[in-house]
């Protein structure tokens, strides 16, 4: 390990430091609100270190890798560093009130969130399959504990379901990794690409060989669990419903983003050759269709808003997968990275959107104590501000312009059209029409239903702040999409090189 390695690893190291610092600060700080603010503010350190690396990387023609190739601090990783740290800061800010009510477990809650984020940072930076697996576990185990954190029946059920199913997914993923290792003799993503090029490939078999086919499907299945993609999405609605709302918000944005990041990295690095990408493009297209249909159809009948958002996140994962499926191999004139670029923009936009919705719900359920859609009835009178913020978020989820939800769909669909997947874009459009039905129920409850309890809802200032920031992002990045798209474009130019 050299100084250079430490430097490349500095955001993750700092993140670990923050987590441990919070564990210890918990002993000394009695005002737990301060502790939350401290955790949110300390995120500046890894953020600054990531920024520093970003400016270091700009101008380099080759990815900056370290630790014997197991780590890479390229712009792709750093893009997700920014996103993940931003999400974390927002989630911690929004859950200040929730943390205060934990009574004795405040430090643990924050530390677990921070450990999970450390895992995500490692996940998006790792370029070696064993590291990726371990980092994945570092994100999953704290998440399972967090899901059970309310410690009532529903919450424990959520945690238990999450950890059991996550373990199954891990085992599947591991089997895939082992087969790749066995077939190519390495776990380094770039080396896998080289090896696969050297090894003989059977044109009649998908992916050129049974072992690679098996491994790719298993690896995709393992990550699809985290991405909430059909048919590995089963845990999502239950865990979202049972877990504390801040945790559900965290899972639906950060966990999903990091899983997409690592899938894009693995697919474009290890299996990025033209012949292979043809094959997995079809796989992702099929999974995208299944996810959109399943998520949208099941969301229609939900009455619990968190459960509804759980199904919604499955459908949204389907839209994002359209971008992953839109690989250049299918086209003659398309840009090789338009698809992942669209997915990155979508992920960022979705993070803003979904956080806005979840935060608004946190603010409301802090007061009403219910997660039924009917608890939103008459919200426009009880709190016009929250009603407005929630509405903007939902409008973005539906995909109505000029929000980021519309623009990101437009970008992803256009990438699909460019890579010859017009049919996939059409399926996506059909689904946006179906989705309007159930999202509209939220707006309807907010504006058009009578409230049983007419008393005003006054939300805690931090929640309002976090929600407003998220809503501002929804509006800003919808109106000025190139801000993120340019960033994503820059991030990607090293990935496919």
């Amino acid at each position, binding site marked *: 390990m050299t100084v250079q390695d430490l430097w490349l690893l500095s955001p993750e190291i700092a993140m670990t430091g923050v987590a441990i610092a919070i564990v210890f600060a918990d002993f000394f700080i009695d005002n737990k609100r301060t502790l939350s603010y401290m955790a949110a503010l300390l995120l500046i350190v890894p953020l600054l270190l990531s920024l520093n690396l970003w400016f270091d990387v700009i101008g380099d023609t080759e990815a900056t890798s370290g630790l014997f190739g197991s780590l890479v601090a390229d712009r792709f990783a750093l893009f997700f560093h920014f996103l993940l740290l931003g999400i974390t800061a927002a989630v911690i800010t929004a859950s200040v009130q929730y943390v205060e009510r934990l009574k004795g477990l405040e430090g643990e809650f924050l530390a677990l969130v921070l450990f999970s984020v450390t895992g995500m940072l490692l996940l998006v930076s790792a370029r070696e399959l064993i590291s990726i697996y371990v980092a994945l576990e570092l994100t999953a185990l704290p998440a399972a504990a967090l899901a059970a954190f309310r410690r009532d029946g529903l919450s424990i059920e959520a945690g*238990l379901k999450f950890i059991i199913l996550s373990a199954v997914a891990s085992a599947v993923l591991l089997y895939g990794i082992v087969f790749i290792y066995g077939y190519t003799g390495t776990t380094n993503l770039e080396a896998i690409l080289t090896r696969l090029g050297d090894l003989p490939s059977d044109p009649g078999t998908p992916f050129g060989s049974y072992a690679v086919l098996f491994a790719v499907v298993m690896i995709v299945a393992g990550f699809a669990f985290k991405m909430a993609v059909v048919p590995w999405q089963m845990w999502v609605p239950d865990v979202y419903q049972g877990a504390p709302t801040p945790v559900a918000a965290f899972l639906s944005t950060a966990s999903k983003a990091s899983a997409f990041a690592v899938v894009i990295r693995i697919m474009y690095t290890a299996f990025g050759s033209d012949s292979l990408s043809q094959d997995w493009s079809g796989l992702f297209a099929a999974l995208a269709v299944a996810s959109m249909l399943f998520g949208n159809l099941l969301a229609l009948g939900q009455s619990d808003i968190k459960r509804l958002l759980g199904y919604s996140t499955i459908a949204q994962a389907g839209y994002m997968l359209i971008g992953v499926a839109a690989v250049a191999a299918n086209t003659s004139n398309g840009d090789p990275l338009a698809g992942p670029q669209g997915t990155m923009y979508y992920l960022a936009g979705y993070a803003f959107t979904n956080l806005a919705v979840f935060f608004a719900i946190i603010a409301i359920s802090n007061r009403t104590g219910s997660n039924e859609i009917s608890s939103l009835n008459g919200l426009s009178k009880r709190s016009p501000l929250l009603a407005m913020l929630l509405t903007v978020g939902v409008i973005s989820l539906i995909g109505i312009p000029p929000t980021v939800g519309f623009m990101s769909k437009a970008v992803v669909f256009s990438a699909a059209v460019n890579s010859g997947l017009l049919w996939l874009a059409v399926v996506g459009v059909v689904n946006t029409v179906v989705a309007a039905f159930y999202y509209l129920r939220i707006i309807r409850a907010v504006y058009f239903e009578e409230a049983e309890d007419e008393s005003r809802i006054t939300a805690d200032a931090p929640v309002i702040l976090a929600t407003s920031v998220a809503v501002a992002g929804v509006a800003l990045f919808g109106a000025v999409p190139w801000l993120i798209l340019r960033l994503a474009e820059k991030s990607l130019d090293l990935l496919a090189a």
Partner: protein
Amino acid sequence: MTLENVLLVSGIIFAIGLYGVLSRRSTIALLMSLELLFNAVVIAAVAFSRFTPSAGLADAGAVTANEVRAALTGHVFAVLVISVAAAESALALALIFALYRAKETVEITDVSEMKR
């Protein structure tokens, strides 16, 4: 003992573990089945280490230290997987205890309040 046979043994243990995960009612027994899944993975990793070192080994007459390292990656993999699985089972046990305290049951079938 050929590579295929060892992998088959690994596959059989994987399938047995999966059967346990799908059918056992007791969460503790379910946890044991999960450990079988991980063990199957570890067997496969070690088997690959033993039988299929890197592709480079096959065509080059001489073997280099790096290639030996590549071959032993499977062992490293095995050790790390075992450690992570142990941590995972510890947390899962904690959850099972919490479940027992909250609901006086450890049957996975009783943990199905949330559905549809």
